[in-house]
């Protein structure tokens, strides 16, 4: 054991000397590895950032929820013209379901419309307006920056109250003071009773809660959009993610009864879950991940080729030295270890420097895409670079170790 450690120490010392002896060469070789490691680590952080953004977006839906809707949200197996012919889900369906359902924690209807919201001379154009009931907030994970959701009284009475998403509040009231003020939708004044906290689910686009406002569904039916205009969505929250399947089963049974379907008719409604969205997102992120890592992996590969090449040169140049070492009793594994540790040292240095540059780069990327270098990336960089060094150094080191001492001593 101690002998092995001695050989390792000796090998490292010799390789460090060799590296310093050929400064220009070592710098260039390391540079190749730096570029490779930098590209791979930066790319993987960027992808991580994209993934986090998507996951955050989905999180605003909540994993304990199902959404009963006329439309299938994520799955395109059923052609749209068949979905189109389904009967709208209306408030009667909703009430019948709500009365019969035992398992859900909260049930709320929602219907969207696209309208412009005004506040004095400030407007936000064509945002998603959700009409819903007071129970809606129980079906979500939304929290409030100020104020509250509308209560049962306001909901049932279709009062002119409104809850603003964070971005909307920022746009309409840049100086604050949204709570208690009035905004106008289609000429109707509504009182702001609450402002939601920022959710940051920008991948959801218009469906990002930050870009939406919420008002009583009865108010919407009265002033903004008829009940028959489009299907409502029934938002259902299960107690926890384990209970979701049961809630889903119950919902299918109840909805079939509510909609008066006979046993041989297929469902004329869809149960939507965030799972569907997750699948789509994972597919997209998966493709980006594979493509991105493959492309940047190529540059690491090129760096590795560079190392291998230069190690071959190094072996050739030091043929004599190898011959002498062998002649005075160095074992094959000592020679192998010497060249392997040379390659590994170059790669490790390159990897650490590349990692350092990647940290700086990711701080810059962070301004556009929330991301941060994870501890696993550091680990990854070290492991990858060591591995690269060993792989690309092996062939030259092996060649060196196989040299015949007699021939190599004679080598000119």
């Amino acid at each position: 054991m101690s002998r092995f450690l001695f050989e390792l120490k000796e090998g490292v010392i010799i390789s460090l000397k060799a590296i310093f002896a050929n400064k220009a060469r070592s710098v260039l070789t390391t540079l190749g590895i730096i570029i490779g490691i930098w590209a791979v680590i930066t790319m993987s952080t960027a992808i991580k950032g994209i993934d986090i953004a998507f996951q955050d977006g989905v999180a605003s839906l909540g994993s304990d929820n199902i959404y009963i809707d006329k439309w299938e949200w994520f799955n395109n197996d059923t052609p749209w013209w068949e979905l189109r012919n389904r009967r709208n889900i209306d408030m009667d369906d909703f009430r019948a379901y709500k009365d019969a359902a035992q398992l859900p924690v909260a049930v709320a209807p929602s219907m969207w419309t696209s309208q412009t919201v005004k506040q004095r001379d400030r407007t936000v154009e064509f945002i998603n307006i959700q009409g819903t009931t007071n129970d809606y907030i129980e079906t979500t994970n939304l929290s409030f920056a100020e104020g509250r959701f509308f209560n049962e009284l306001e909901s049932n009475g279709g009062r002119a109250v409104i809850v603003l998403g964070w971005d909307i509040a920022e746009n309409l009231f840049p100086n604050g003071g949204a709570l208690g003020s009035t905004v106008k939708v289609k000429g109707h004044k509504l009182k702001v009773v609450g402002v939601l906290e920022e959710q940051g689910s920008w991948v959801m686009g218009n469906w990002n809660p930050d870009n939406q406002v919420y008002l009583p569904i009865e108010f919407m039916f009265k002033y903004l959009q008829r009940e028959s205009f489009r299907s409502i969505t029934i938002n259902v929250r299960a107690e926890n993610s384990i209970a979701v399947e049961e809630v889903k089963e119950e919902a299918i049974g109840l909805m079939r009864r509510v909609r008066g379907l006979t046993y041989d008719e297929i469902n004329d409604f869809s149960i939507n879950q965030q799972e569907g969205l997750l699948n789509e997102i994972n597919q997209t992120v998966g493709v980006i991940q594979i493509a991105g890592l493959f492309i940047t992996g190529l540059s690491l590969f090129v760096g590795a080729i560079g190392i291998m090449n230069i190690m071959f040169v190094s072996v050739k140049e030091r043929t004599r030295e190898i011959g002498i070492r062998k002649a005075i009793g160095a074992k094959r594994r000592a020679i192998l270890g010497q060249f392997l540790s040379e390659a590994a040292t170059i790669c490790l240095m390159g990897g650490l420097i590349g990692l350092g540059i990647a940290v700086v780069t990711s701080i810059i990327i962070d301004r556009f895409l929330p991301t941060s270098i994870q501890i696993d990336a550091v680990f990854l960089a070290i492991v990858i670079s060591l591995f690269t060094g060993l792989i690309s150094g092996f062939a030259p080191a092996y060649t060196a170790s196989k040299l015949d001492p007699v021939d190599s001593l004679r080598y000119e």
Partner: protein
Amino acid sequence: MLIWEIIKVAMSALHANKMRSTLTILGIIVGIFSIISISTVISMMQTSIEEGVSALGKNTFQLQKWPSVRTGSPEERAKIRNRRDITVEEYYKLRDKLDGTAKYVGGEQWNFGVRFKYRREETNPNISVCGSTPEAFPNNNWNIDTGREFGYKEINSVEKVVVLGSDIAEKLFEFIDPIGQEVWMDNHKLTVIGVLESQGDVFGQSQDNFAIVPISTWQSFFGKRNRSVNITIQSFDKAGYDDLIETSEGFFRTIRKVPPGEENDFSIRSNENMLRQINDITAGFRIGSFVISGIALLAAGIGIMNIMLVSVTERTKEIGIRKAIGARKKNILFQFLVESITLCLIGGIVGIILGVVTGNVLGSMLEFNAVVPFDWIMIGVSLCVLIGVSFGTYPAYKASNLDPIESLRYE
């Protein structure tokens, strides 16, 4: 010839160190491969998009209510939404004014989501139906496969005739001649007088899923006022095209009574400005992927420089001898430059071939149309030379500056 001599020396040097040359070339192959395969996929995507949008005929542009790409601030979008629909009357007025100036002036209105039936066969209810004037056929590149198109006679007498896209004809009439058969379009009965040639797929999406009826007949089904008319205009030749756009714009402003100094209350769509807009949108994406895929090439360049430096050191003595017997600085410089450029070019050509093949395989999996990106092949070759020169210059310069006395003594 001196140049041949130099190239021969360079080649033999590459040949002498096979392992080393192979590894260096491999680096370049990977670098060029990375750039070329990515750009091949991107240009396949680009051509697929372009083929999709440049559906208008040659030298043709279109006046329409909506801009082809909807961007801009909310205020601008609101302004566009408030535009008046283009009416058939406006179309006829423009046609009369452009009489003799333009080759064809066609008008068309669209409705989406109808179902066609023939006896027991029926299509999905996702067929678009276009009401048009006869000029719309040449303007849209709609070519008749069998039968005939309709003329003004059918328009004036509001005849219930239809020209079917090839998809519908295939679906409804598998074994019989469609011409003269009566089909149902939702609840309207129509006589088939023609079938269009297939226009192929874009992104795996068929372009033949529509039918054309006379514009008057269309209006009798779907109402006169509920859709804006698109006006397609074709010039006689390429030379008159730009003038014609300006003339038509002027005439149409008069017809729509747009006051001087106001913006147009309609949009002009031409294949050219569609392509330009698409290029604008995809530019960032293209630059980004070029840079990312270029990183590998940079690494390969560094590899070349490194190995060239080694090569110079090893051949110090040779350089000394060449100089001693009268070789000039520029000869030595040239020799090493040629060596590094040759390395790059060999790697580049292999990389380009691999890249184009891989790109096409990947792209066809994504249902893009096959493409040989000549522009990228040219860029690839120039990049090779550029890499060879820029990373070969320093070693070559070092070699050419060696002192002959010192280098002859070098051990």
